[in-house]
Structure formats: C-alpha cells, structure tokens
C-alpha cells in the first residue's frame, strides 16, 4: 500500500514546521526519515497518521485521503508515536485488547491476535503485569505490539529504538526488516547507523524541506565523488614512498598517518581511481603493499553537510 504525500505544509503560528514537501513510499519499502531535531519529521508522521491535519496539501494512504477519509486511513496504519505513550495503569493484555477492539478486530480473533503479538514482541513473561511495572525496553515492545495488532498495511514508527539496549535494538531492527518485506514502513530517527541498517531508502529533511532522497549509496555518491584509500607499504622508508606517490598523477592529496611507519591516507582526484597505479608502483619498486583499504564517506558527514546551513 503506497503512501503519497503531496505538497504537505504544516504551520504552527508563524513557523512552517513542514514546508511544501512531496514524496512517495511504495509497498515493501522501508523509508528512513532523517533530520536534526525540529526538522519536521514528527510533524510529517503526525500528519500521515491523521493526528494533525495538514495546513495545505494532502496525504493519501492506499488512495484514501487523510482529509476526506481519516477513519479508513487510521485503520490501515499502525503507529508508534515518539516517546511511546501508553496507558501505564493498564495491564499489558487489557491494553492490547482495548486497542484490538478499537481497531475493529473481530471478537473471536482478538485473543488469537493478542497471543500472536505477545509471542512476536517477546512479552510472554510480562503480559499480566501493569505497563507501569515494565522497563523501557518492554514498554517499547508493548508500543510495537499495539501498532502491529491489526496487521496494518502501513507502519509508522517515530524513533522506534530510542532508549533500548543494543540487543533490543538489534531485535527490533530485525523485526522491522521482516515486516518491511511485505508492508510499507516509515520510520524516523536521528541515529544514522540505524537508518542505514534498516532502511531501503533515506529521506533527509531539514527545516521542513527535503534536502536529500535516495539509498544510502546514492547519498554517498552525491556527497563525495572522491576515492579515499588507506595504504601501508613495507620495504621502503616514508620519505621515498611519499615522493614516489606524489609522482602518480591521479593522486590529489597524500596524508601520512602518524600511528604507523610508512602508511598514508590517499585522496584521489575527482572521479579518478588510484588503486591500480599504486599497485603497479609498488611492484615496480619492489615494495610490499600490506594494506589498501577504501574509506567510505560516512553517512554522518553527508548528514552534516546537508543539514548545517
């Protein structure tokens, strides 16, 4: 089920939280929403889930508009809000039953669905406890369970792994990945590694506008088209090697690494590769090339580049 966001604008007083953005998410796609604090991620998600109505523009979920048919849209979406609010005074089972009833699951199927959710989200030992007695990680699981209980076509998750320990993060990521194969998932985060690990496509948003849209690889290519290598050479002293490397014409910059004798960080010129040239050089001089590692531009750098000013 596709989500189509068309010219969405949302203003809070004079402030434009989301400024005329449009994008699409297709079935089977996990879209990562990335941006600094206050960029408009949460606002966009609240608009998709019909909590806030757009000031301008429209959102269609499976062809149903949030403006004219919110009840239908709400039924299609499973939503985990930021901070994961829950009725803490309720026991887990009762809470899931309440949500299942609200979602209009047939009476005979409610028990079965709850059982399934408890298993999937690993709540077996906690199901009779009150939510207030649960740790943060378990609460997050309850939040996911209530979002998934009606088997929604679209899943909207606002910072789903906030406050979890590394094992739980890995579990939840795996869960999102497996759901994402058949459903449409939109998740937001400001943790870049998370988005890279779980999402097929990344949307970077800043000050209410989309500044980048593509896969992690696309974004890397867009930001830097330069090859960076780390090499170590044996059988030569630093100075000679340095001089020899300077002579290679695809190399733009050589940065000696202080930690290790005769190792360098090599920046090639734009759109050029120096790997072959370095290898031939070593063969020619009779040196041993003990390390040659391509250094990928980190997503962090791209993110910074795109969102600072």
């Amino acid at each position, binding site marked *: 089920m596709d989500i189509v966001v068309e010219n969405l604008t949302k203003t*809070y*007083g004079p402030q434009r939280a989301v400024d005329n953005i449009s994008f699409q998410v297709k079935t089977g796609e996990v879209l990562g929403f990335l941006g600094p604090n206050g960029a408009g991620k949460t606002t966009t998600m*609240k608009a998709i*889930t*019909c*909590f*806030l*109505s757009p000031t301008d523009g429209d959102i269609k979920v499976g062809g149903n508009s949030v403006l004219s048919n*919110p*009840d239908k849209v*709400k*039924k299609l*979406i499973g*939503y985990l*809000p*930021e*901070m994961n*609010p*829950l*009725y*803490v*005074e*309720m026991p887990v089972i*009762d809470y899931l039953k*309440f*949500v299942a*009833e*609200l*979602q*209009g699951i047939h009476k005979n199927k409610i028990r079965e669905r709850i059982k399934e959710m408890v298993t999937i989200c690993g709540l077996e030992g906690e199901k009779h406890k009150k939510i207030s007695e649960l740790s943060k990680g378990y609460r997050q699981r309850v939040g996911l369970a*209530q979002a998934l209980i009606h088997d929604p076509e679209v899943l909207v998750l606002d910072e789903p792994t906030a406050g979890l320990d590394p094992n739980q993060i890995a579990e939840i990521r795996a869960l999102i990945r497996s759901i994402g194969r058949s459903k449409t998932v939109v998740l937001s985060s400001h943790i870049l590694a998370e988005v890279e690990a779980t999402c097929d496509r990344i949307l970077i948003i800043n000050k209410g506008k989309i500044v980048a849209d593509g896969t992690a690889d696309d974004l890397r290519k867009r930001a830097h088209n330069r090859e960076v290598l780390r090499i170590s050479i044996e059988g030569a002293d630093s100075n000679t090697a340095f001089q020899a490397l300077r002579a290679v014409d695809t190399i733009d910059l050589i940065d000696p690494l202080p930690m290790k004798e005769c190792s360098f960080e090599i920046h090639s010129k734009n759109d050029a590769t120096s790997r072959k040239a370095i290898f031939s050089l070593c063969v020619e001089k009779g040196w041993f090339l003990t390390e040659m590692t391509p250094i990928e531009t980190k997503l962090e750098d791209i993110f910074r580049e795109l969102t600072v000013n």
Partner: protein
Amino acid sequence: MKQIWIITKRELKAFFDSLMAYIMIVAFLGFTGFFTWLYGADVFFINQASLQSFFSISYWTLFFFIPALTMRLIAEENKSGTIELLLTKPVNDWQVVMGKFLGTLLLILIALAMTIPYYFTVSSIGKIDHGAVWSGYLGLILMSATYISIGLFASSITSNQIIAFLLAIFIGIIFHIIFDVLASSFTGLLGGIFSYLSINSHYESISRGVIDSKDLIYFLSLTFICLFSTEAFLAKRNLSK
C-alpha cells in the same frame, strides 16, 4: 457507537483499577448515609418519610466529587501523550469525548444505584411521595451529566490535573452559587436570565417533583455545549501548538 462504548468501558475500568471508583463510592455513600440517617436534618429529625435531605446532600457531595473524577480524563492524556495514541486509532474526537463522558456518568449511576435501598427503607417506615423520589434521582442524574461535561471541558484545556480540578470547581460555583446570588439581587429581565442560568433553580424545581421541559432543555443544552467545547479544544491541536 461501538467505538464510544469501547472507550466508555476502558474509562470505567480505569476508575475501578485506580481505586478512584471505590473511594468515590464509599465516600459518597458515607456522606449521604450519615446526613440522611444520623445527623442534621435527617429523616428522623424532620419526621417525614422523604428523601429530601438525601437529595440535597448528594447534590453537594457530587459537586466536589465530580471534578475530582473528571480532572484526569483528558488532562492526563494530554500530559502523557496517550491522546495521540488514541486519536490515531479509528476514532474521532467526538467519540473520545462521548466515551469519556459516558464512562464517568456510568460510575455516578452506579453510585446512585447503591442508594436505592434508602428509598425502600424510607418507604417502609412511612408514606413516601414516589414521584418526588424518582424526579429527585432524575435531577441528580441530569445535574451530574452537566457537571461531568463541565469537568471534561476543564480537563481538555490543560494538561495539569490540579488546574482542571480547580477550573471545574470554579465554573461549577458560577453556575451553582454566583448566578443564584445575582438572580436574587436583580429584578426583572436580568434577574430572570440569571435565575434561568443557575443550576440550582432548575435542580430544585425538578427535585420537588415537577419535571418541566424547560429544566430538561437547560441541563441537556448545557451538557452538550460543554461537550462540544471539549471537542473543539481537542481539535485545537490543529490550529497551533
């Protein structure tokens, strides 16, 4: 309708889960029982088989209890953010407001139902005016409905329960006492208007056994105005934040 009932059930259960309901029912029965049977203008003192003293004490007890019940209804959800969770389920703002309203009203009805034995007891010791008793109960129910809607409204405009409580009491006092006082200090049209606005005068006329459509319209319209305002405040999230 189904959605309203699901929310009503949850709210009612929340009252019982949090002990609020038990405290409220016990205190309500304690107060009304004490003043109906044991102290002050009780049944034996006035020496009449009438529940008049019960109705007047219930009236004041509910005046304080209802804001205590309603204060958390929406304020707490605003504070914890669960309102977002609720409103992104397939329910609209009106269903949420109605569900919460009916949940609280149901609790009051349970508390009132527990005083039915008073009626049987009093009628067994003397000749009781049955009509006055039933209209007295009707008056209490209508008044409770109005107060719950006022409390719900107060709860919807803040995320602080104490403010919601005080505001509900404050609005209550205006309808309860201030309009009454103003009505007696003005004459003519103005006095008539204030007298019409006062909850007191309508409650009294109903609990005397006179069910006038004027009083019914007053209670129901005030209730719905408050419920609509509550819905409007819930929808306010769309204007600004």
